[in-house]
């Protein structure tokens, strides 16, 4: 209860300071619009129909991009953790591609997919893929080798059996931590095409 109260008080203090800065003339309202003007702007967007359209379009990109980026990232992360040869083969490919920022992929997304919904979704996939890849890779690598030997002893010798009996249950917490990080990253990636001088990719 005290935490909730503190959270509300913190938010109110933040809004008051925000309101005071343009009100006291410290910054022009054009540079920092006061929060008191936001409900009116929000209502205008709703009445014009822009808000709902933008939110639905963003959600469509978000859900698809998040699902595909998470799926591919987790699958490749677990595969590289389980197969040392695959890990070695991809190690420098990963190092080459990992630091490329999502925004840098925008020109390629346009060339490959045109100015389309697919291009916007692709940027989100890139945004969440690496987070999930590393989370799943780390979680699966951290599985205790003794558990895999126990699986062998109990007759679960195939890779698929070990995956479902040991690796996935043992790495779920780590994988889900990556998925949660990806949830936020995907929203940032939804906005990325908006801010990259490519209005046709914009959804918000």
């Amino acid at each position, binding site marked *: 209860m005290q935490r909730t109260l503190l959270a509300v008080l913190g938010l109110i203090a933040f809004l008051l300071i925000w309101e005071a800065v343009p009100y006291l003339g410290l910054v022009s309202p054009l540079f920092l619009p006061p929060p008191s003007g936001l409900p009116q702007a929000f209502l205008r*967007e709703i009445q014009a129909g822009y808000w709902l359209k933008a939110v639905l379009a963003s959600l469509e990109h978000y859900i698809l991009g998040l699902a595909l980026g998470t799926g591919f990232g987790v699958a490749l992360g677990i595969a590289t953790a389980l197969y040392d040869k695959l890990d070695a083969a991809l190690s420098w490919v990963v190092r080459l591609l990992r630091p490329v920022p999502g925004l840098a992929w925008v020109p390629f997304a346009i060339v490959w997919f045109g100015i389309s919904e697919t291009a916007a979704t692709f940027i989100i996939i890139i945004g969440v893929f690496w987070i999930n890849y590393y989370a799943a890779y780390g979680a699966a690598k951290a599985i205790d080798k003794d558990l895999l030997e126990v699986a062998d002893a109990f007759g679960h010798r195939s890779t698929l059996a070990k995956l479902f009996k040991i690796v996935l249950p043992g790495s779920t917490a780590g994988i889900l931590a990556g998925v*949660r990080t990806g949830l936020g990253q995907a929203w940032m990636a939804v906005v990325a095409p908006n801010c990259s001088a490519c209005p046709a990719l914009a959804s918000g």
Partner: protein
Amino acid sequence: MMQASSLLATEVVVVYMITIAALYGLTDTLFVQLRDRLLRWQR
């Protein structure tokens, strides 16, 4: 949001920033509930 920023309609930009924050808050809250349910067997 892009159109709003190009028109310097900063209050509209903030409306969409808050919209995204609210959507993130909603998705994160739902995810945490799902995660806690999925990991209940571990506790």
